[in-house]
């Protein structure tokens, strides 16, 4: 709610699929290659060429349909959407109109105050267009057709989100699912996932307001900014006694504003009709079922399971699940016998995330789930301290070495032997008379200092719990 208005958001997400070839021809589906080198007569729409539909595109879209609890239209067709633009070689886009491959689904997103169910209207398959390149130095635009024919799914939500926070959660969950079912690379900066945003506002209890569609939203954070801007813009108009026009607007993320592109009257007439170059798509019933059965555990279910089964906090669970590699590593460590999932999660979100954020993948290191599980177990069993654990971790990331022998070799085993600890305690207490006096006069935080000094003196090997007990006994005695 903003200023007493409810904000209604619907999203159209376009995700590029990571198939080997394009949707209607055998060209390689790859990003970032030299301009106009990934094109053939078919994706360039040369006269006489014909499309042939890539079966993986249909499979991937059905997988997403299952993940979003959709009805699968296993008998459907493709349609032409006609419009002229230089990046669209055939001057029509092969898409799906009245019968999408998947429809009537939903997605549950986890919000702070519980689960929010967001309806999914449809998922359809279509081809991407090329790219226009501009330069101030050049009087004209350049067309690179490499992206033409890259397979896309368009996921259209119902207008079920109430504000940018829900939209953000929806988008992040969609992205996470795409990665988990491994059908899209989801690289925002490469434009492999993009969205159009529909926003309207109304007073609670009143019918929905007039909606505006916003294009050119190129990141999730831009979606949040765009929605907030657009909602406020519409509220201001209404508060001033005006009416919101139905129109398509363009989001300018740099300036942080949306500008009108075209009004409802100028709406494009796409003249959809069934694609005559392609016949009916008929997916066998068994294949639809098989695709459902082979679906992996989806991110939300994983988060819930990590909470229940491993006792992780929601935000830790969500952070691990957010990155497929982290979650996979987490589960492999558990399978390898890791006894403390909580401690493991701290390591993954701490040290492991640190090197991953720097661009190093786990597979690029010497770290294996077995080693990580062993290391966590050493710590949780009290055999080494966390500080020593870090020393060992730094070694096993770089070298394929046995943990026990590292500990032996460097004499890093945690000292729990009472007599050795007593000796350290005596030494520290004698050297820190002021702190002892402070403690005795009621400044209890002096205890922490003294224990810390003991730990330091033991080079981190002392068992901190046992050390603390001894100090306490000696101070009290």
């Amino acid at each position: 709610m903003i200023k007493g208005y409810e904000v209604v958001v619907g999203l159209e997400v376009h995700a590029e699929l990571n198939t080997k070839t394009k949707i209607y021809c055998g060209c390689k589906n790859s990003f970032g290659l030299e301009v106009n080198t990934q094109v053939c007569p078919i994706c360039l729409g040369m006269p006489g060429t014909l499309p042939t539909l890539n079966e993986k595109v249909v499979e991937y879209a059905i997988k997403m349909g299952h993940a979003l609890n959709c009805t699968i239209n296993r008998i459907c067709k493709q349609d032409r959407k006609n419009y002229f633009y230089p990046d669209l070689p055939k001057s029509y886009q092969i898409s799906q109109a009245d019968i999408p491959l998947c429809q009537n689904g939903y997605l549950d997103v986890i919000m702070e105050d519980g689960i929010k169910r967001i309806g999914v209207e449809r998922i359809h398959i279509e081809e991407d267009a090329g790219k226009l390149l501009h330069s101030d130095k050049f009087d004209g635009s350049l067309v690179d057709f490499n992206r033409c024919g890259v397979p896309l799914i368009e996921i259209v939500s119902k207008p079920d989100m109430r504000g940018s926070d829900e939209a953000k959660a929806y988008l992040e969950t969609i992205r996470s699912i795409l990665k988990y079912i491994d059908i899209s690379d989801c690289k925002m900066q490469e434009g492999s996932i993009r969205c159009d945003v529909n926003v309207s506002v109304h007073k609670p209890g009143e019918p929905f307001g007039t909606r505006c569609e916003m294009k050119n939203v190129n990141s999730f954070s831009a979606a949040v900014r765009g929605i907030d801007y657009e909602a406020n813009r519409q509220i201001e108009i209404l508060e001033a006694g005006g009416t919101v026009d139905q129109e398509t607007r363009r989001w300018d993320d740099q300036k942080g504003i949306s500008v009108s592109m075209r009004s409802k009257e100028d709406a494009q007439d796409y003249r959809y009709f069934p694609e005559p170059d392609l016949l009916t798509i008929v997916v066998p019933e068994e294949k639809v079922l098989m695709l459902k059965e082979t679906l992996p555990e989806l991110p939300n279910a994983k988060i819930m399971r990590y909470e229940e089964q491993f006792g992780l906090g929601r935000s830790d669970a969500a952070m691990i699940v957010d990155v497929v590699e982290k979650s996979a590593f987490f589960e492999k460590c558990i399978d390898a016998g890791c006894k403390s999932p909580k401690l493991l999660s701290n390591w993954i979100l701490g040290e492991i995330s640190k090197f991953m954020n720097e661009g190093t993948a786990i597979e690029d290191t010497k770290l294996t789930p077995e080693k990580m599980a062993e290391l966590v177990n050493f710590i949780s069993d009290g055999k080494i301290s966390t500080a020593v654990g870090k020393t060992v971790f730094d070694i096993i990331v770089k070298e394929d070495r046995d943990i026990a022998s590292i500990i032996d070799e460097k004499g890093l085993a945690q000292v729990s032997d009472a007599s050795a600890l007593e000796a350290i305690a005596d030494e520290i207490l004698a050297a820190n008379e002021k702190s002892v006096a402070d403690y005795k006069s009621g400044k209890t935080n002096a205890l922490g200092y003294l224990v810390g000094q003991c730990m330091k003196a033991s080079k981190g090997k002392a068992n901190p719990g046992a050390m603390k007990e001894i100090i306490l006994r000696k101070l009290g005695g």
Partner: protein
Amino acid sequence: MNLYEYPAYELSEMLKSKKISSVELTKDIIKRTEEVDGRVSAYLKTDPEMSLEAAKNADQLIASGKAESKLAGIPVGVKDNISTKGIATTCASKMLENYVPVFNATVVDKLTEAGCVISGKLNMDEFAMGSSTETSYFKKTKNPFDLSCVPGGSSGGSAAAVSCGEAVIALGSDTGGSIRQPASLCGVVGLKPTYGRVSRYGLVAFASSLDQIGSFGRCVKDVALLTDEISGHDPMDATSVNMNYPSLYDNLSSDITGLRIGIPSEYFGEGIKPEVADSVMNAVKALENKGAKVIPISLPSTKYALSAYYIIACAEASSNLARFDGVKYGYRAKDCDGLTDMYEKTRSEGFGREVKRRIMLGTFVLSSGYFDAYYKKAKLLQKRIQQEFADAFKTVDSIITPTSPSEAFKIGDKISDPLAMYAADICTVTVNIAGLPGLSVPCGYSEAGLPYGMQIIGRKFDEQTVLNLGYAHELAFGGFRRPKI
């Protein structure tokens, strides 16, 4: 007799037995073309050097004993909307005047692999839109039987070339009659195969759901030979049908005993010249005498077929021809003021009037608010027409009608009256709408000596029955009659 006058199946034997070489034959075709094409204007482009090179290769292939196809060494003319790698493919349009494909149509690949010699690219109505070859941007092809008459269209160049010996056989394309109608007007045999029998890959699309590449010859045997060569499933064309295609030529038989021929009353009444109807019925009687049974039938929705055809064909064309926008290939207008101006100028200058009208008609019937009233209605009618044919084929094996309502008309007579021109397709469009095979064979001549054609329609993929009937008719009627040119 000159070599160019022989049918392909005889030339094939002569080549095989080394009585002649492909180079000799090709030279004769080139000579004949030089003699008459100045008057007939069938070809848009010939390249004698390239043809002779191909003929040399064919001779080597035959000499090596590796020639599997009966068509090895035979010159074939190709309609100019069928893509030929390295050879301009213009669709007889200013839009594609300088367009040179970087790939071959599947049918061209097949012919090349078979050892055929491409004799040249043949004139047509612009983008195959027309029934007289008058809408070609480059030239008007003349009817070899009367140079003041049209050859029919849109494959007028193919029909005329085969008729006067500028090609032994030729490829055309047929969307609403574009093979059968010119075959009829030029006194040759033309087959539009079942939709899905021949790959459309590389055929510049007019109306994707109706277009089909087919064959021209001076006799049924030649048409069977050429059709065999181009038939077959193509993974590049999703609408091509994957099934066995037994040789039509090998199974050709004039024994038609017991075959049931349906005669639909709707094709013999209003709009059909009585002389044409009479000549078709005479031919049917001859078939009856050879053992066929003649059964009167009715195809009541025929009267709406032309309407449904123009809606579906133009709707698809408006979309198919949208790619000609001056961006990637083809004509681009000069001195444009921005993108929209470039689009509009390019398309207005690059397309002829007939093409523009059909694009606009197609755009109109698909536009917001009109889809249901036109496109949807036409598609539903198409279903009904298909059903009527399916029902008819429960009681008959073949249906015979006139091909064209009249013989060839004078150049210029109908060009300014689209409805009159469209009526030339009245007997043929239903066959495309129903996706059936249709053959046109000559069945009579007007007093002035202009040919009449008879159309033989069959069940889906039953080209064999259609050709057998055509063959039996040909034997009874007497074969090809040469135009005096």
